[in-house]
């Protein structure tokens, strides 16, 4: 079966077109936009919740988007094993929807951080990361004010024990320490996956580094991994 990506558009999404562009123009995939007021996923078999400021980030990031009509369909789709990837604000929405555990707090520095970071790939046994060669450290941009991943001790232990931590902030050589933690996240967490392995949430933006003209295509490795292993 061919992949068909569905990029959800909430009022305030601003990375929806980046995701569409990377998938359509760079990776030549089938992709469609899904308006938040609809509930039809239009036969998409991979859903992308893009970055941005859905509903103005009012109340809490992702809190209101989680109740959009389209999210009922996305939650249903995810619970049936459908592939969902939430990027940045999309990750916040997945947490609010309860599809992934934990919350994203304000960055420890209180500053909005927009820069490239290095990521150690902690779990290559997922459809999203299978194509990342062993030892490869990814360089992806982050752009967020609230990316400080927090969960209680039991949840962190369960995430670790079940190999659900997919990406950790690291140095260019893969060293993981507080020095390379941009936002204060517990265990340097940059991305996690659910137990079933079909729902991934991550703060860094793979869709922003997919076009070779930008000088870095590390993001396309993740997107291609989905396409190649579907």
């Amino acid at each position: 079966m061919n992949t068909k990506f569905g990029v959800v558009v909430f009022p305030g999404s601003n990375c929806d077109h980046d995701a569409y562009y990377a998938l359509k123009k760079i990776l030549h995939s089938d992709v469609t936009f899904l308006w938040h007021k609809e509930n039809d996923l239009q036969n998409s078999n991979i859903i992308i919740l893009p970055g941005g400021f859905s509903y103005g980030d009012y109340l809490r990031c992702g809190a209101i988007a989680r109740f959009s009509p389209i999210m009922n369909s996305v939650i249903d789709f995810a619970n049936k094993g459908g592939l969902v990837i939430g990027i940045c604000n999309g990750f916040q929405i997945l947490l609010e929807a309860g599809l992934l555990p934990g919350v994203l707090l304000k960055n420890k520095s209180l500053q909005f951080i927009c820069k490239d970071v290095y990521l150690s790939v902690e779990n290559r046994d997922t459809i999203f990361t299978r194509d990342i060669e062993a030892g490869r450290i990814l360089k992806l941009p982050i752009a967020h004010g609230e990316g400080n991943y927090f969960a209680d001790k039991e949840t962190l232990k369960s995430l670790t024990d079940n190999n659900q931590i997919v990406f950790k902030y690291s140095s260019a050589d893969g060293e993981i320490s507080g020095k390379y933690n941009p936002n204060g996240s517990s265990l340097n967490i940059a991305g996690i996956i659910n137990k079933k392995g079909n729902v991934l949430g991550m703060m860094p933006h793979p869709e922003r580094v997919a076009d070779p003209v930008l000088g870095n295509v590390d993001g396309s490795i993740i997107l291609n991994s989905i396409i190649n292993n579907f």
Partner: protein
Amino acid sequence: MFKVTVIIKRRPSILDPQGKAVEKGAAHLGLTNIKDTRIGKFIEFNVDIDDKKTAEQEVKDYCTKLLSNPIMEDYEFTLSEGTPSEEKSA
């Protein structure tokens, strides 16, 4: 009809960098006795139900399902009868 006020606080175990930053401002003002500043949310609304228990249940649902995130926040609310009185400022 009840007037409802909700206060949402970060749970004590959650760091509040915003509160800390604001407290630094207090120190710059010379208010050196200010300690443990924590910033939360205050929300008010009306609930159009006459029975108090039913109204409380509706408010509780609003608080737990949308207004607060139990992983990081606690909430408390008060119900008062009648339409909201006019805001008074000192």
